[in-house]
């Protein structure tokens, strides 16, 4: 079963050890080179913390399970801070082709909740395969110019 960023946003993050709620899933950060979810951001504002994808023990339809609270990390560098601030979130971001043309807005990202592998990028009702994803930053998401 595939999962979607938009649907997963706001999902409760729970410690498997204590069964306590640690916060709500605010953002999902991806690693473009590996084509995969890199980390999750829990909570907003100054309290935002990151969880490396490897620390997620179960990404379920009703909750995101992590081993325990020690998996929550404060941002350690500028990029992680940008991630915690939601600046690297793909949702709602402008999509540009590698030839410099506007492709609209990223409306959703489809991924495999078991492996974190990105499957496709949704630009409105059009989906671009994950292999077309070339880059992502605070300004734009770069997608290979669609052939048509």
């Amino acid at each position, binding site marked *: 079963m595939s999962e979607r960023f938009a649907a997963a946003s706001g999902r409760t993050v729970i410690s498997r050890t204590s069964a306590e709620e640690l916060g709500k899933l605010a953002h999902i950060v991806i690693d473009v080179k590996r084509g995969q979810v890199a980390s999750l951001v829990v909570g907003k504002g100054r309290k935002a913390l990151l969880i490396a994808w490897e620390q997620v023990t179960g990404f379920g339809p009703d909750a995101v399970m992590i081993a325990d609270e020690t998996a929550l990390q404060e941002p350690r560098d500028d990029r992680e801070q940008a991630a915690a601030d939601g600046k690297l979130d793909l949702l709602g971001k402008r999509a*540009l082709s*590698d*030839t*410099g*043309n506007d492709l609209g807005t990223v409306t959703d990202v489809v991924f495999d909740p078991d492996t974190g592998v990105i499957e496709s990028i949704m630009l409105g009702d059009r989906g671009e395969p994950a292999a077309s994803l070339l880059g992502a*930053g*605070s*300004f734009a998401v*770069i997608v290979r110019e669609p052939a048509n």
Partner: protein
Amino acid sequence: MSVLVTGSAIRGLPVVTIAGGEDVAEVRDVIYSPEAGRVVGLTLNKRGFLAGRRREVLSAETIRAIGRDAVMIDDESSLILAESSPADLGTPPSGRDVTGDEVLTEGGASLGQVRDIVVLVGSNGAVVGYEIDTATGGIGYIPVPSQLAVSGSALVVPDTTRQFIEDDLAGLGAAVDESRSKLGLP
């Protein structure tokens, strides 16, 4: 179909890194070499409201594509200091601006004055034509002939250019496609 933009439409576009997805600068001006018939590079402004000029420039060789909405580069290492860039980009000779130049046919008839260059979208600065104020009034678009003589004040085009004055960029784009297919170019 070939999509075209004028040089002035390129000014102000964000310069975006492909891998980073960041807007590292914006286009201040387009440096055009009439002799080469192409854009040799771009000068840059910092991003943001009232941000000033950047000391770095962008050589056409490191531009991945000039698009309708952005200029794409690999990464920030493509930005080079104007002092250390080739002379035609870092210190372009004065009087090379083709804007206002008279467009004369070989037969000695004026087609009008150059308003702007016309750039092929998706290229790294290929110039396929000029936007002109036509002698009869109004704006027209002419293809850049393969060879043309150019001075500081006029450029000479083949007599046949008169037949190829288009009313809009879409018309010039179609004409460019047609002439390319005749020459067997992609």
